[in-house]
């Protein structure tokens, strides 16, 4: 039996934001984008904790980048979605789409 790895809400939002940001995905733009999309401030620590969990599952990879004076000489940590992460996003989207399509009454209410 094939093993599925469905994503939680925050995990899915994080992965989509990472894909959207591309090569420039590190803590600051990531948290700004998340705050913009969700309409409220996010804790950068919780973003890192979720990214660590995703990295543990093999859905995200990270690498250290350049350090700048405004960061006090500390390196940026860039994140990218792995192939496995992309597959997981696609699978979750399929399941969610199917579920939404199977709820006609909710669709009508929302309309």
């Amino acid at each position: 039996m094939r093993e599925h790895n469905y994503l939680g809400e925050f995990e899915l939002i994080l992965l989509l934001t990472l894909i959207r940001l591309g090569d420039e995905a590190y803590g600051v733009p990531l948290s700004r984008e998340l705050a913009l999309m969700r309409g409220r401030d996010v804790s950068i620590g919780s973003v890192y904790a979720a990214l660590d969990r995703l990295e543990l599952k093999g859905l995200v990879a990270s690498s250290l980048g350049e350090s700048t004076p405004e960061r006090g000489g500390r390196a940026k940590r860039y994140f990218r979605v792995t192939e496995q992460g992309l597959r997981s996003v696609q699978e979750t989207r399929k399941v969610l789409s199917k579920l939404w399509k199977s709820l006609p009454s909710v669709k009508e209410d929302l309309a």
Partner: protein
Amino acid sequence: MKPAMTIGLATWMLEHLTFGRDNESLSGDLLEELRAGRSAGWYFRQVSMAMGIGACEAIREYASPLVFSAGWSALYPLWRFIGRNRLVHPAPDRWVALRWPYSTMLDLAAGILPAVTFVWLGLFVYLLLLLRLRRTNELSSFRVLLGLSTSLSVLLAATIGLFYYLKHPVINVQYVATEGFYSLFHICAINIPMTLSLMAAILPILPRTHRIARRRRPPHANYEHNTGSNSIL
């Protein structure tokens, strides 16, 4: 205290007092936001939350191996019962005839053999569970060997500590070979070296992400996913 000093103190706490995490990048991000116009209050809130989250993550990371180690150690009397005719050889006469230190070494080895095999079996059971549940793919034979050797060292050290705890008049390795040493009578005390030993064996094989310093990003690196979201999905 001046704001610059308190910010420096908060940054130091974030980087040094968060268990097992590499928070250099996180503190860099927070400083970048602070320089971009965020308030000191926002900075302290972020640092507090990051430290709280770090503590919760550490508890979650170490709780399951600790609970498993303690639970597995409680099964030791059963292991003694199962292996009573195979693993336990109280004072075999043929070893007494050997010269020192071989007689003592063999006596010691026979004494700790049931405990070591039990701890190592526990490690392999945990490893199987880890592979099954978390699908870790970064396990190396080096880390397994490190776990095995560390557990043996910890077991020996904790056993010597147990001699002191049980108030033996002298440290004599022959005590460890006596049948009653790893027995039900001492089970509560025995659980401590067993648990510590198994925990020491498990720690090197735990999956790691943020604790490992990663390679520096090469300049102008091209990542395979660097395309628009529509083309990916």
